[in-house]
């Protein structure tokens, strides 16, 4: 506080971060992202994981449901089953990759849904403001008041679990963050004169929201969406681990962990590998989200 009266004004920050051209601004964002090592590593891990889950099962000569009682509990890194086998002798690697297809699909689909819903609600709440905005945001607060794990479980208990319903449930508990981010962003943007300029041209609310405001909020939405993927993967793991999610024999990382509990002492790899996949996936999306946040930080535009 001693230095408070001497703190350089914001003008200086503007002075120092002035970017001359659009091309520069964009490559600037890419440049900033690439400087974020963890984010780049996360992006590589995600790409690798997607590729493995897509191609891997086609290359491995085992089916995820093929039971081979004679080779049950085969240890990893020995013999033909690279990651070993489970209590029914099913190949763990192919199950991990097939489970990855499910988990990642749910993650991305839930992200798409909750981002769409959250963006729409945040956009309307931020632009309309007043009573409409207040009512919408109180709804957001209300949903946020529920502990989301219990909400997930309560919903899951009533609905027949499959990929579609699990995705819907996760999306239903995950759109609020996006709505908040978007609402805050839109409120600031709405105060800028270009919004009034559009209204004075006779633009409808829909036009102003979609053409003027939304495109300025893309950065924060992308960041929020990325973090939502991580959240959704984690949520799917919770639900499946607790037995309300994807049901056996179909594998997901969550129900594989659940299954591994009984053999934790004798066959720890059954828990370690799915746990590792979840950790790596969630951490990677979080790192990418952080990197994007730094890279897309609004300093570029003035």
């Amino acid at each position, binding site marked *: *506080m*001693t*230095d*408070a*009266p*001497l*703190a*350089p*004004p*914001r*003008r*200086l920050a503007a*002075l*120092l971060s002035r970017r*001359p051209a659009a091309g520069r601004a964009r490559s600037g964002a890419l440049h900033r992202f690439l400087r974020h090592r963890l984010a780049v590593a996360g992006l590589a891990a995600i790409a690798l994981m997607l590729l493995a889950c897509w191609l891997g099962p086609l290359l491995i000569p085992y089916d995820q449901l093929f039971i081979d009682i004679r080779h049950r509990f085969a240890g990893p890194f020995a013999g033909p089953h690279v990651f070993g086998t489970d209590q029914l002798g099913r190949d763990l690697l192919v199950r991990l990759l097939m489970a990855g297809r499910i988990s990642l699909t749910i993650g991305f689909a839930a992200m798409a849904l909750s981002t769409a819903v959250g963006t729409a609600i945040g956009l309307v709440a931020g632009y309309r403001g007043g009573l409409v905005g207040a009512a919408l945001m109180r709804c957001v607060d209300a949903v946020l008041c529920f502990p989301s794990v219990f909400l997930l479980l309560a919903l899951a208990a009533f609905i027949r679990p499959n990929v579609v319903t699990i995705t819907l449930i996760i999306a239903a508990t995950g759109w609020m963050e996006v709505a908040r981010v978007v609402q805050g962003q839109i409120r600031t943007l709405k105060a800028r004169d270009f919004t009034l300029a559009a209204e004075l041209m006779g633009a409808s609310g829909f036009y102003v929201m979609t053409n003027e405001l939304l495109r300025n909020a893309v950065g924060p939405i992308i960041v929020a969406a990325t973090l939502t993927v991580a959240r959704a993967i984690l949520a799917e793991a919770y639900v499946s681990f607790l037995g309300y999610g994807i049901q056996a024999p179909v594998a997901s990382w969550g129900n594989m962990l659940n299954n591994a509990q009984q053999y934790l002492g004798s066959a720890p790899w059954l828990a370690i590998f799915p746990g590792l996949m979840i950790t790596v996936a969630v951490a990677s999306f979080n790192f990418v989200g952080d990197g994007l946040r730094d890279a897309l930080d609004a300093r570029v535009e003035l």
Partner: protein
Amino acid sequence: MAGPVLEVRGLSVGFADGRRTVPAVHEVAFTLHPGETLALVGESGSGKSVTSLALMRLLPPAPRTRVTGAALLRGRDGTVHDLLALPDAAVRALRGDRIAMIFQEPMTSLNPVHRIGDQIAESVRFHRGLDRHAALKRAEGLIERVGIPDAARRLRAYPHELSGGMRQRVMIAMALACDPAVLIADEPTTALDVTVQSQILALLKGLQRETGMGLVFITHNLGVVAEIADRVMVMYAGRIVESGGVVPVMTAPRMPYTAGLIASVPRLDLKGGEMVSIPGTVPDPRAPPPGCAFAPRCPHRRPTPCDEAVPPLEAAGAGHDVRCRRWAEIAAAAAPRPALEARA
């Protein structure tokens, strides 16, 4: 007291931009005597604010910026400190004590969650080691001194409860808390209404008479310069282009840029017709013109000598310097200059 209280020599500032350094200020030099007001005039991008921030050591550290030169501040005991060479801790001790600064927008420099009395007192406590009670007492005195009525009550106000003019008075009170020898005022009245602006200018002049501080007044408003300055330094594209006493510079400017700037100030004379403007815009500091930076906008430009090399600062009179190769020719052709005299 004889001798300058602040002497700046060869101050240059560059900002790192990727691999290269973009120059923002070139070889700025000036002296400031006690009780003197030096106006630093220029438009956006002229380097006037960067100059002041460099003096206050408020620019981001190397390698983001590169600052060279010397800024010699005379200390309370007569010793001379080079603000640009001292370690950070020593600069902090001088800043707010011997040299202080006020900014254009007081709201960004005031902490919104602290009462203004505490904010002023904090500065006094840091530099003078007073206890809280004594510091608050002094804060009250300072608030009275900058013309805020009902000082005891205003001590307890938060920044957002004050008008822009009042906030700027608070900033001045904070800056004056330790009787600095030098006050740097960076566009302190630009965000204010004209009636409040004239109040603040009168306040600064009055305080300067009382304390004998040297004032570096940064502004783009030539009306304000005429009102407050003893000497003027005009900056363009990071260089001093004209400097001297306020009367010679403003009544007989030698640099075409200064003349254009003075002519483009709108006046209350209802003359009608087109307003005088300077065509074009300031050059991009990344790609400066080869010669005189003002040449592309200058009505008196000749390819030789204007575009050959950056002109040196030449003496055009006693204490009047100008950075123009053709100033003597232009002055001879234009004399006698009736423009301003007629208006006076």
